[in-house]
């Protein structure tokens, strides 16, 4: 439900990065969305289309990398058998308790843009 707020923050972050590099037009943004981030990738894509619409970056696409978390055993390491959305109570190898690692990502990890100078040259 808050994907619109997240998309607005993402769009602002992209424009900040773009401005720091001399401006231009955003072509593609890539984000990492963790399993525990509370963000639904499909809803974020819809929200992104809404926030970039009708502006200079309307053609900008969004790529979402979903990053699952690991359940980690202190002796055996990350549990390979775990699937996203399922939860193991204890380590399948040694029955020890598990801790969670990662999955909280909500990061802008890549930006592709056409620089402002190139845009001028095309006209």
């Amino acid at each position, binding site marked *: *439900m*808050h994907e619109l*707020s*997240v998309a607005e*923050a*993402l769009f*602002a*972050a992209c424009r900040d*990065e773009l401005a720091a*590099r001399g401006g*231009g037009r955003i*072509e*593609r943004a890539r*984000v990492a969305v963790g*399993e*525990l*981030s*509370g*963000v639904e990738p499909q809803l974020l894509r819809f929200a992104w289309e809404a926030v970039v619409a009708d502006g200079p970056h309307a053609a900008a*696409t969004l*790529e979402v990398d979903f990053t699952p978390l690991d359940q980690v055993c202190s002796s055996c390491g990350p549990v390979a058998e775990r699937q996203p959305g399922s*939860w*193991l*109570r204890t380590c399948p190898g040694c029955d020890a*308790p*598990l*801790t*969670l690692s990662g999955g909280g990502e*909500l*990061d*802008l*990890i*890549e*930006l*592709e*843009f*056409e*620089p402002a100078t*190139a845009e001028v040259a*095309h006209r």
Partner: protein
Amino acid sequence: MKRVNRVNRANRANTNRTELRKKILAANDAAAARLRQRFAETGTLVIDLVSSPGAGKTSLLEATVRRMAGELELGVIVGDVATELDAERLRRAGCPARQIVTGGACHLDARMVTDALDALDCVPIEVLFLENVGNLVCPAAYDLGEDFKVALLSVAEGDDKPFKYPAVFAKAGVTVVTKIDLLGHAPFDLAKAGEQVMTLNPGARVVPLSVFDGWGMDAWCELLRGELRAKRASRTRLAASEEPLTNA
């Protein structure tokens, strides 16, 4: 690079690509860090209360205010999509309360809390509750400068809520199981719920209680006292290590 052919090929040669590692909610995180600094200076214990609608956040706060009146100065900033009803309830219970009507937004963010805090002019608050909008998904993503989150799970909701909404329960330092007087009337396995919480967050504490008959309220109030003592102790250590404390 699957989307290359969606980009005008003439422009393609001019595309710049930059790798980044930037938190999307960095602006909220920065506002939350400023709040946390402010609360450290005043020694205020701050708790973000999160649950689905109807789990009993406002009722727990009313009961807490009634029990701790005269002992601790409590304050509440309460988020609601459309009404002032919760703040009115809390003010009737005798607690300074500031309502944030989010106008449809499904969560509180650090900027909303900052604005509400500026307007909450009252006696110094020792324990400040941030009663989030009833929602078990979105509030998990937003740092409000709190010391810890408390997730509420009511017996009537079912014992599988933690695994269904893992982000909130993984982040909450405390899970309060509310309406425990309904055990026996609703199919709810307290051990199972507790096990799910501990799987998501091995360091979590689980506090079952009922504001209806008061069962468990002593343990809840004792938890608050203990956390406030710990906060004050860390404030004293902070003051001793880096005087002057404020840079104002």
